[in-house]
């Protein structure tokens, strides 16, 4: 499988499939990496080190800053896989790399391919957007 990379890099981690869109600003605590959006059914879940599977982003234009700050604090996701392109997250990841050398690839998959990634499985992303999705852990 191959994803379209918006910000390229290699990463590996367990998938965290968000069942609803999330705005990182107001939705993610960049100090702890926890989902804090009270409207979100997965409130309380930590995104740190996970391959965040996000069908769609939402809302605020401050999400770039929140992603970069989470990277500085060491609680950013390992990678972000999107169902639709989101330049706010791609640029947040690019700045995290420029400032801190943190590699958080951001890539887009067709919605059907994204939906086929089960929560909790190991996902390996190559710098060219190649994806290896392991069986359930």
């Amino acid at each position, binding site marked *: 499988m191959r994803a379209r990379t918006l910000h390229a890099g290699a990463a590996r981690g367990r998938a965290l499939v968000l069942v609803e869109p999330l705005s990182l600003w107001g939705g993610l605590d960049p*100090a702890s990496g926890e989902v804090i959006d009270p409207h979100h059914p997965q409130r309380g879940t930590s995104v740190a080190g996970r391959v965040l599977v996000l069908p769609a982003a939402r809302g605020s234009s401050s*999400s770039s800053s929140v992603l970069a700050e989470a990277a500085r604090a060491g609680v950013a996701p390992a990678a972000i896989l999107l169902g639709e392109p989101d330049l706010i997250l*791609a640029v947040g990841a690019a700045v995290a790399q420029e400032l801190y050398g943190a590699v958080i690839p951001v890539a887009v998959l067709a919605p059907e391919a994204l939906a086929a990634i089960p929560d909790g499985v190991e996902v390996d992303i190559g710098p060219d957007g190649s994806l290896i999705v392991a069986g359930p852990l």
Partner: protein
Amino acid sequence: MAVALDDRDRALLAGEQGDAAALAMRLVLVAAESLRAERLIPITRAHVDSCLYHGQATLDFVDRLREGDARVSVPTTLNVGTLDLLHPELWRGDAETAARGRRLMEAYRALGCRPTYTCAPYQLPDARPSLGEQVAWAESNAIVFCNSVLGARTERYGDFTDIACAITGRVPDAGLHQTDGRRATLVLRIGPDVPERLLEADALYPVLGVVLGRRAGGRVAALGGLPPNLSEDRLKAVGAAAASSGAVAMFHAVGSTPEAPTLADALGGVSPALELEIGLAELREARDALSSAGSVAPGAPIGAVSLGTPHASLAELQGITDELGADRVAPEVELLVSTSRDVLAAAEEQGLATRLRDAGVELLVDTCSYLGPILRPTPLPVMTDSAKWAWYAPANIGASVVFGSRRECLRTAVEGRLWRDAGLWGDR
């Protein structure tokens, strides 16, 4: 996909104008890649949201720009920051955060940005882009207003990208910058069961925006069945809510917004992929979901009332003044109105600010009451007429929210107890 660059773009990327301009160009290219743009185009203005403090990373970034000799190349306005720099005593948080927030706000000013510190730059006559103008705006409510109400063209830019576009003067030629990207692909029609009185009430519009955001996600939708020539303040409320509940960057209100004199214009002559109706039940459900405090009975005590999200316009300050009349805010309630320093200056000139303060209203500028500890701490619910405030305040400042119309908010502030306008939503 490779983005075609001209000589100036290449020179910037190669660092010929300094390291900061090269960094800015790299970020513009990430944006271009995300939008699948084939080239970059020039902009005439920018609105920058990066001046709001979100931790050390936001300071590290601006320091990198300043060390690399960055300057904005187009007229650039600034969004809200952490602090009211004109009334810093209104901050109730720790001094360290205040100092960092202030440093960030001032650092962006030093890059050549105009210190407007408002989420509603479209209310400043000399900062409003005109129909068809290509700009780079951040701040979700400003983006949707710019595209929808002004007919100027911006993509959904965020922190870092905004200042990168302002420095380079370039944006990707894609998405909402192109005529094709601005066509509605979804039609949402107001259902026949929505009462006439509600269509004429301010309270409908933020709630309608919540539904728009949920239904549209990131698509451009056309809203049909609304009264024509809706005020800018009502359209502001729709857009701010839709950009909170969804990723809406543009909508058309048929008969009100400049690219939608008719539904056919909004659709650009193409049949919509989807047509849906918005009924009263869906609106009431969206309204109720905005009250995180749950169902609070009329007569229950309310701790504070927050108005002016996005920043109140001069017309809204006038409306609040008129509605209050000779009444005063109850001593146990805090009534706070957020606006911009420029609108406040106009309100001072017209005597409105004095009348509001005399009535017990607190006026906040440069920031917003849901961004940090500004409201007096209260165990009681906080009331607002803003869907955006209702959406973000519970997570941001731990407020328990009651949503209501502006009139309900003001009567509540005067009486100190929740006042409801029975029948507004056709509930009985």
